[in-house]
């Protein structure tokens, strides 16, 4: 029987991460695609981002993450194809 994603410990999901404003300058990219283990949360993505983008590390705790255009807490589970954006403290107006 073929293993489905849920039972496969090696199953991964892919998310797109977008960087805006100061986050873009710190990461030095506009966007990236990352793979995470199935069952990953926003918190696990924060850890991966801090590792991959050392320039972001110190600023990351002050940033919120939006998942599919909605601000999401650290416990929010990520799914295949999610669009995640780093939202530094906003300064519109």
């Amino acid at each position, binding site marked *: 029987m073929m293993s489905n994603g849920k039972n496969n410990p090696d199953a991964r999901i892919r998310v797109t991460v*977008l960087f*805006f*404003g*100061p986050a*873009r*300058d*710190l990461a030095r990219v506009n966007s990236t695609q990352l793979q995470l283990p199935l069952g990953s949360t926003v918190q696990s993505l924060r850890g991966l981002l801090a590792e991959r983008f050392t*320039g972001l590390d*110190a*600023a990351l*705790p*002050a940033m919120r993450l*939006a998942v599919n*255009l909605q601000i999401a807490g650290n416990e929010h589970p990520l799914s295949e194809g999610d669009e995640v*954006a780093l*939202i*530094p*403290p*906003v*300064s*519109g*107006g």
Partner: protein
Amino acid sequence: MKFIRVDLTDHPIDAADLRRFVQDAGESGAVAAFEGVTRRESDKDHGELIRLEYDAYPEMARKELNDLAIRAGRQWPLNAVALVHRVGLVPPGETSVMIFVSSGHRAAAFEACRWLIDTLKQTVPIWKQEVYADGFTRWVRPASDPFPRNQPAEAPS
């Protein structure tokens, strides 16, 4: 409240058009407006501010602007709300954000307009960067925010 117009634009905002939009809505006896303008400033080390550069997460910013208009319509008896924010370059003296609100009577229009700009500044994913005469750039941080100061700015060393 049936009439909402929100937009992000990289062109100068057509205030007359927005004003007509809210004034024509329902039986309005009051139109309140707020206009945010790039302030003429100078920095002792970097000279005159030559422009602000606005960045936005466009899809989310539009959605949040629309949500703000809907929330204002639930809190006050409004006829229409128009919310337009610039993105890209905005030189001193030009408008970066324009809000119009119409209602039957003035209290609702004044209060909603104030709430809209205050909440917009706290929630909508838009960021501005100051650009000075000597090329120095700096992201503006909200006064109450813990964003670290040591971010690399593109300062000439």
